[in-house]
């Protein structure tokens, strides 16, 4: 089937099986390698992209379901002020260990902040628990989200400080 999808502000025409997940269209057809494959079943969040601004698992989103939705991937996350703030906070907090999950984490975090500019720890848990970090950089992800939001980076769950 022929599809024209909107990716990072550009129309992309391509031919693919209707069931082909957006993840593999992005990676192997459009050569956008930033979106990662982890599980293929929406369990890990490594493949998270935005569809009309909503964090979406591209590994279970068939190309036929994308339609006219605007797709944003990690490669273009810096095109919004929120996305850029998240990216910068990730660097300032030095979140990354292996880095494999971080594209998905940043996409979930920037979708959260676009909707909720001042999230509390419960909001962060809610928005981010679909994204696995195998290196468990969770404390720093939490701090980076708060830093991007201009909030104090203290963990309010820590009642032992």
């Amino acid at each position: 089937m022929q599809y024209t999808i909107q990716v990072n502000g550009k129309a992309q025409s391509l031919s693919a099986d209707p069931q082909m997940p957006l993840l593999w269209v992005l990676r192997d057809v459009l050569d956008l390698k930033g979106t990662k494959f982890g599980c293929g079943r929406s369990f890990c969040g490594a493949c998270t992209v935005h569809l009309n601004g909503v964090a979406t698992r591209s590994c279970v989103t068939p190309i036929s379901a994308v339609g006219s939705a605007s797709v944003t991937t990690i490669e273009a996350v810096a095109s919004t002020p929120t996305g850029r703030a998240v990216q910068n906070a990730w660097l300032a907090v030095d979140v990354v260990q292996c880095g494999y999950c971080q594209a998905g984490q940043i996409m979930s975090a920037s979708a959260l902040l676009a909707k909720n500019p001042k999230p509390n720890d419960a909001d962060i848990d809610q928005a981010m628990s679909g994204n696995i970090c195998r290196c468990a950089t969770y404390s720093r992800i939490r701090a980076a989200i708060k830093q991007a939001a201009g909030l104090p980076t203290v963990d309010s769950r820590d009642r032992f400080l």
Partner: protein
Amino acid sequence: MMRRAFLRASLAVGGGLLLDFSIPGALANARGAAAGPAALNAFVQISSEGIVTIVSKNPEIGQGIKTMLPMLIAEELDVDWGAVRIEQAMSDPARYGLQFAGGSRATPLNWDALRRVGAAARQMLVSAAAQTWSVPAAECETQSGKVIHAPTKRSLSYGSLASKAALIPPPDLAALPLKDPKDFKIIGKSHPGVDSPLIVAGKPLFGIDVTVPGMLYAVFVKSPVFGGNAVSAKLDAVKSQPGIRDAFIVPGSGPFNGLASGVAIVANTWWLANKARDQLQVVWEEGATAAQSSEGFAKQALELQAQTPAAKVWSEGDATQALAASAKQLEAAYSYPFIAHATLEPQNCTAHFKDGKVEIWAPTQNPDAGRKIVAKTLGLTDADITIHMIRCGGGFGRRLMNDYMVESAWISREIGAPVKLLWNRPDDVQHDFYRPAGFHFFKAGLDSAGKLQAFKDHFVSFGQDGKAASSADMGANEFPAKFVANLELGMTLMPLGVPTGPLRAPGSNALAFVFQSFIDEIAHAAGQDPLQYRIGLLGERRVVGAFDSGRMIDVLALAGEKSGWGKRTVAKGSGMGVAFYYSHLGYFAEVVHATVGAGGRVTVDKVWVVGDVGSQIINPTSAENQVQGAALDGIGEALAQVITLRSGRVVQSNFDDFPLLRMNQAPPVEVHFLKTDHPPTGLGEPALPPVIPALCNALFAATGVRIRSLPIDPKLLMRPDLPA
């Protein structure tokens, strides 16, 4: 005109281990005078503009080595970190020495050696400046990428000196003076990961991102039963699927880390290759392992524990007699399951076989071992194989084995094109080298004052012919061995047809749980504070083997202080637990505060970690991140992870049934380093082992229920005062 000056220096590092560096100097001769950056040795190049390129020799798996190793060189080279560019080395042990990521070894192996590499380059630059000015080198000093002649207030930049310095014979590495640590400008300061700007922008960096012109995509379907063979397959049904280029049976050969038998499917895109598996029917010859199961092993272990251990690991005094004579006796059976590595980037490798040679792009922790097994399997020589070391999306020990490398090389040869092989998640979960399960049967005897008089462990593990399977062994120094008057550690092995291997803190990640939990039982039986009891067990400060009990006493005491041990009011349903463990030369004591809620649900509220890894934390930001990650990794293992064998195959297949820790389960982890006057040692692993028993000990404090088997079963922890 190529003149090669090799400098070979043997440096005593760590426990007397000898490192052998060969540093090809004067390479700039071959390049001509001013063209391109000048190579001062295998690790350092400086351009005429003063850009310093430092090669990072080890695989990056998330441990931060690509940032840390160059910091060691840059410090002694005396350049600003901002002027440094870092380049990932190829796999080339003749040029770079050992290149692997394992055992938290990079720090002890390179702390001295790589600083000397930087110091050697600095000395060549100083000599070049001294020659230029016709002054004694001793009158010259360096600062921020410049050589300075203080008496005449002249200075020359490294960039302007580099091509001349490259012609100077390299100095004797062993004789070079190194900086006084108080003068460090780079070491000890936090430097964020050098690849992070690319990672947050989604640039292609990982094995899975590699693209080679003309590349095809492959999946490889292996026998669900370990060691099984593909007898036949209906390949036409697969080949007729869209986009499929070929499908063929691969004969298995050799050990688990070589080539397994299976069916390769090669396609124009990976998704099509993976999808075509739906049409694949294979007749497998399953072999003997089909009779093995987790349940069967547990039964067998119970039977074996009643017998005398097949092998003695260590004994001192007379544990049997002392046990019989003791005022109080304890007995407990502990066990832990097989678990998988589950790197978030599934195993993958890109290979191009051409004209009898193979070029490989591999996310691997152990490239040279991969080269050797590819060479052996394909009938090539080591020299025929070129390996690019690609950033790994996690390692944890999984990528010390290179089975995926052999598979991709084989498939590329068969198909006659470059191939990217990628495993799907079930492949990855079901074809790992698992952390082996284990069964421990403990006995202890206390005197009337609660002092530990007798200790016995019968460890029922896996292996054959008296040799434990990979990571299934126990050593003679397992604490409390050598700290109790009467002790007996014995082992009995069960044959296993399933591949096992090192998982982050191998051996220790399981042994810490059982020993530090049973010691907690002993402390409670003695009616004493578990932290103080441990300090008492460690006794006089002394060195036993490589283990310094004084260092452990100090981290325990500090963990007590930092966590408010014994001073906090702990709510009903909550508890604090402590444990310590020595592994990978690191001393770690950890305290966990945990709460049990409705349904026995465990919430880990906080972890305090105190570690002693010597005199220097090289990159503090990375060190804290590693330690926090290790502690959370251990909590994830304890809360939920199990690989179940049934009929010789793995039951679990993805993150729904093999869950990893998530954000909402991850407690704050407070990290403290106790700096001591010892050479710096590694950090990737030693913070993991103690967190598991510290958690289980906290749950005992909270509920009175002793966790003796992992993963933690919430049903055991149900509180009568709360709903189920």
